[in-house]
C-alpha cells in the first residue's frame, strides 16, 4: 500500500515537474520573442516573403463571393483575387504575361484556411503574413492589427426564405423573428438595434447561420449584402434578401509594427484599384459583384477628388 502511494506521489511530482518545465519554456518563449517594430527591411515580413518565394495569406473557404471553392475545388472569390494582386505586386510580375497565368500566380501564394475568429490570432502569431478575409475595419480591431487601405464598402442584409411574408427590414419589425448570425464582436446589440424584438442565435460560421435558416431554425440570416446578392443570383428562387444597412469597410490586415510590409500591401491594392493594374481589379469586381466600375480619371489624383 505504502509503495503504491509512493509511486503515485512520485508520478504526481513528475507530472508537476514536467508542467513546470513546459510552463517555463512557454514563458521563456513569450519573454524572448522579438517585439521590436520592423524598422529595416531585414525585420520586415517583406524580407521573409521574398526569401520564402511565397506569400502566406490567411483567408476563408466558405463565403462566396469572397472566398470559396469552385466546382474544381479551387479557391476563388474577391479576396482570392486581391491575394493574387498582392503576389503579382510582390514578385514583380505586374507587367509580365505571367500575371495572367493563374497557375503561376497561385504558385506564389500559400493559402491558410481559417475561421473568422482566427484572423487576428493567426496574424499575431506569425502563422500568416496577411489576412485577406472580408475583414470589417473597427477601431477596436485596429488596436490589435494594422489595416490596409479598404478594397470594398459592405453592408449587412437579411437573407430570407423566398416565401417569407416580409421583404424589408421595416416589415421584419414586431414579428418575433429568430435571426441567425455569425458570432462576432457586438453582434447581438447591433442586430437588436435593427430588429428590436428579434431573438439572436450566434453561429461560428456564416455557412452555419444560413444552414440554420434553411433548416427552419431561424427566420432570417444576417449576412453581407454582397453575399446576399450572390446567393440570390446563383440559386434563383431559393432566397430573397432585404435592403442593406450598416455600411462598413473591408480591408486586409497585417501584424502591427511593420510599416514596410504595410506600405507594400497598400501599394499593391492601390494600384489594383485605381492604378496600373486596374483592368484586372475591374474584371474581378464585375465577376464577383456584377458591378461595372468606372475607369479611374486621368489628371488630378482620384484620392483627392
Amino acid at each position: 500500500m505504502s509503495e503504491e502511494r509512493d509511486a503515485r506521489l512520485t508520478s504526481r511530482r513528475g507530472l508537476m515537474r514536467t508542467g513546470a518545465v513546459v510552463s517555463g519554456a512557454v514563458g521563456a518563449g513569450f519573454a524572448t520573442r522579438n517585439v521590436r517594430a520592423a524598422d529595416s527591411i531585414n525585420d520586415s515580413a517583406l524580407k521573409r516573403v521574398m526569401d520564402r518565394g511565397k506569400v502566406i495569406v490567411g483567408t476563408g473557404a466558405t463565403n462566396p463571393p469572397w472566398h470559396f471553392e469552385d466546382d474544381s475545388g479551387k479557391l476563388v472569390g474577391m479576396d482570392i483575387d486581391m491575394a493574387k494582386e498582392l503576389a503579382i505586386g510582390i514578385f514583380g510580375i505586374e507587367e509580365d504575361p505571367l500575371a495572367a497565368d493563374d497557375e503561376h500566380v497561385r504558385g506564389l501564394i500559400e493559402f491558410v484556411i481559417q475561421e473568422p475568429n482566427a484572423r487576428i490570432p493567426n496574424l499575431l502569431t506569425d502563422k500568416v503574413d496577411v489576412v485577406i478575409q472580408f475583414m470589417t475595419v473597427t477601431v477596436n480591431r485596429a488596436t490589435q492589427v494594422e489595416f490596409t487601405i479598404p478594397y470594398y464598402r459592405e453592408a449587412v442584409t437579411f437573407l430570407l426564405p423566398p416565401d417569407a411574408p416580409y421583404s424589408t427590414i421595416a416589415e421584419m419589425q414586431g414579428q418575433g423573428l429568430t435571426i441567425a448570425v455569425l458570432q462576432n464582436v457586438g453582434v447581438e446589440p447591433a442586430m437588436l438595434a435593427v430588429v428590436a424584438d428579434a431573438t439572436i442565435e450566434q453561429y461560428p460560421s456564416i455557412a452555419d447561420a444560413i444552414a440554420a435558416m434553411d433548416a427552419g431554425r431561424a427566420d432570417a440570416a444576417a449576412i453581407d449584402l454582397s453575399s446576399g446578392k450572390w446567393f440570390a443570383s446563383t440559386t434563383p428562387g431559393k432566397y430573397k434578401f432585404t435592403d442593406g444597412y450598416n455600411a462598413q469597410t473591408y480591408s486586409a490586415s497585417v501584424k502591427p509594427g511593420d510599416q514596410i510590409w504595410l506600405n507594400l500591401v497598400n501599394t499593391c491594392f492601390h494600384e489594383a484599384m485605381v492604378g496600373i493594374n486596374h483592368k484586372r481589379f475591374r474584371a474581378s469586381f464585375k465577376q464577383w459583384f456584377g458591378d461595372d466600375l468606372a475607369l479611374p480619371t486621368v489628371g488630378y489624383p482620384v484620392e483627392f477628388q
Partner: protein
Amino acid sequence: MLPDVSSLPLLFSLRLPYQLRWEYVLDHKEWFIDGLLLALWMSLIALVCGSVIGLVCAFARSSGNRILSVAVTCYVEFIRNVPLLLLVFIFYFGLPQAFPRRSDERELILTLLPTPERTFTVALSIYAGAYLTEIFGAGILSVSRRYLDAGRSLGLSRLSLARFVVGPIMLRTVLPSLSNTFISLFKDTGVAFFIGSRDLSFAANKVNTDFFRPIEGWVAAGVLYLLTAWIIAFALRFAEGRIKWSV
C-alpha cells in the same frame, strides 16, 4: 534559492508581446459559469439517457434474438464510427431539411428539438448510448455462469434473471467505466458550440470575437474543463471506493 520576484511584473506586463488581460474573463465570468453549468447539465442528461439506451441495447443483443442483435450491432457500429460533430449536424441541420418547408414532419422535428441545447443533448445521448451498449455488454459477459445457473435453478424467468442477478452484478462491474464516460461526455459538450449552444466553448470564443483575447478565453475554458473533470473523477473514484464489492 528563491526566484527574483521583482522581475515578475516585468515578465507579465512589459516584455510579453501579447499582454495577458484577465479582466476580460473576470468581467464576464457569468458567461463561463453559465456555460459550465450548461455543459454539466447536458452531459448528465446524456449519461442518464445514454445509460437507458445502453442497457436496453446490451440486453437486447445478449437476448439471443438475431434480428435484435443485428439491429443493435448496426446502431453501435454506425455511431462509433462517425464523429460526434457530424451526428450533431445531422440532428440540427439535416433532419429538418429532410422534409419540405412548413410540412408537418419538419414542424414536428422543430417542436421536439427546438433549441441547440436540446438537440445536442439528444444527439449526445444517442452517441453515448452506443458506447454504453459496449460497456454494459462487457459487464453482462463478465457475470459468472454460476450466478446464472443459480438463478435458473431457483426458477427465475429471463426477465427476473436480468433484473435481479445480471443487472446488479453488471452495474458494479461497469461503474468505473461509467465515470470515465461521464467525464468524456462532459468534454464532448464543447462540440455544442458549433450549433450555437452557449456552453463553455461559446464563452471562450466570445471573449475572442468580442475582445480579440483568444488566449485568455480559451485558457479560462481549458482550466475550467480540466478542474471540473478532475473533481468529477475524484468524486466518482471516492464513491467507487466506498462501495464494497462482493461479486
